């Protein structure tokens, strides 16, 4: 049995970086399922999902040594996966359902206070605040904050002009801030 089976993701990834194919399989077992589920929420095209998943693990195989050990391996892999999907969208009309978005963890997002709040979205206050946003603003928030894309990438995914994405993101953040400050005392 491969020792990597009990290792943390970071340890397994290191083994992958040294060319251990069994370790890649361990990562695949741990991560393929949730990445698949999550990719399916971004496109209804099952073929794109499979292709993006395949490319993701090939990319992990080739770039494992580039993981700098900061942040979660899961986030790093999602960053790769969503960009692989995004790449396949290029030049196509996006077959994306309502919640269009993407994440990149390849470059870990620098999180501001309200970003952090959003990432802890699992509950009432932030949920309520997000619900109050118009669908356009939510989509942009999701693509940038939840999925971690740059505004430029989000624009490509959402098929919107870059400027539109930036202004919607600003609007969404300021609305969220206004709603959240009275509740939790976030912000300065």
């Amino acid at each position, binding site marked *: 049995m491969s020792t990597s089976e009990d290792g943390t*993701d970071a340890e397994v990834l290191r083994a992958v970086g040294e060319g251990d*194919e069994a370790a*890649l*399989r361990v990562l*695949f*077992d*741990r*991560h*393929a*399922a*949730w990445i*698949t*589920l*999550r990719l*399916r*929420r971004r496109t209804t095209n*099952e073929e794109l999902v*499979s292709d993006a*998943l*395949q490319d993701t*693990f*090939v990319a992990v*195989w*080739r770039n494992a040594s580039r993981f700098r050990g900061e942040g*979660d391996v*899961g*986030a790093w892999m*999602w960053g790769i996966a969503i960009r692989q999907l995004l790449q396949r969208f290029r030049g196509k009309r996006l077959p994306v*359902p*309502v*919640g269009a978005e993407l*994440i990149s*963890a390849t470059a870990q997002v620098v999180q501001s206070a309200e970003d952090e709040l*959003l*990432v*802890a*979205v*699992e*509950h*009432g*206050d932030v*949920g309520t605040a*997000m*619900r109050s946003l118009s*669908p356009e603003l*939510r989509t942009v928030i*999701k693509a940038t904050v*939840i*999925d971690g894309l740059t505004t430029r990438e989000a624009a490509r995914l959402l098929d919107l002009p870059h400027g539109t994405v930036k202004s919607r993101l600003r609007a969404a953040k300021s609305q969220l801030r206004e709603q959240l400050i009275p509740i939790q005392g976030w912000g300065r």
Partner: protein
Amino acid sequence: MMTSTGWHVGPKLWARYAAGGLDYVTESAVDAHVVGCAECRQAARSYVDPAPLEQVWAAVGTETARPRLPFVLRGLVRIGLPERHAVVLGGSSGLHRPWVVAVASALLCALLSGFLPEYQDRFFVLLAPLVPVLAVAAAYDATDPMRELFTTTAHSKLGIALLRTAAALSAAVPLTTVVGLLVPGLESLAFAWLVPGLCLTVTMLVLLTWWDAATTTGVVATGWACAVGITGRDASALIDTARMQGIFVAVTLAMACLLVLRTASTRLRGGF
């Protein structure tokens, strides 16, 4: 209100997530949570059919077992070179060789014509059109490791020949042109050598259907040297007149037709 600690994506929530039945905010909450929660990621496995995942895994295995294309070729694939072509190019480890030969002969060309101004036209006319010939020859080393590939690949022999020629020329042509432009006194010839160079290269490809690379190079180079020798003192007249350029174009076209005929003939394997 739930707190961020101790909150997990339970089976019901995963099921609804997978079915697309969650509202926007809850879905975001799941997304944000799972990137950092191994437990929830593990739980997701029950909601994905393992069979298609295994197919993906098999495909990943095929990819990872394949040697990686060299850096330059990956760049070319990115800008549109079909991957199967890149693989053929990458398969000839000799790709560096034609490039090195191209660089070396272009440099030689520059040195000779730069340091011997008296003979510079003659040297340039002699050498410049031979730079691509040498580069292509190097791509067709007599101990051709690609020979086996010819019989097994889906590429036509002509296809492979042209592909490698193009790879060799991509180094030879710009370099020699730069030499022509940079060396003082050669400006008028800087582009005049292109058509003769192409002509010699195509001729060489035709001859390569009969002979190996060494013989072919010898024949082409000797032939060209004789032509330059006969022209005598004013070597530039050989390439730098409209009439000669016309003749080279005509010969090139004739040779191209011959090349197509040769590679299409049944005697060669893998003809297109």
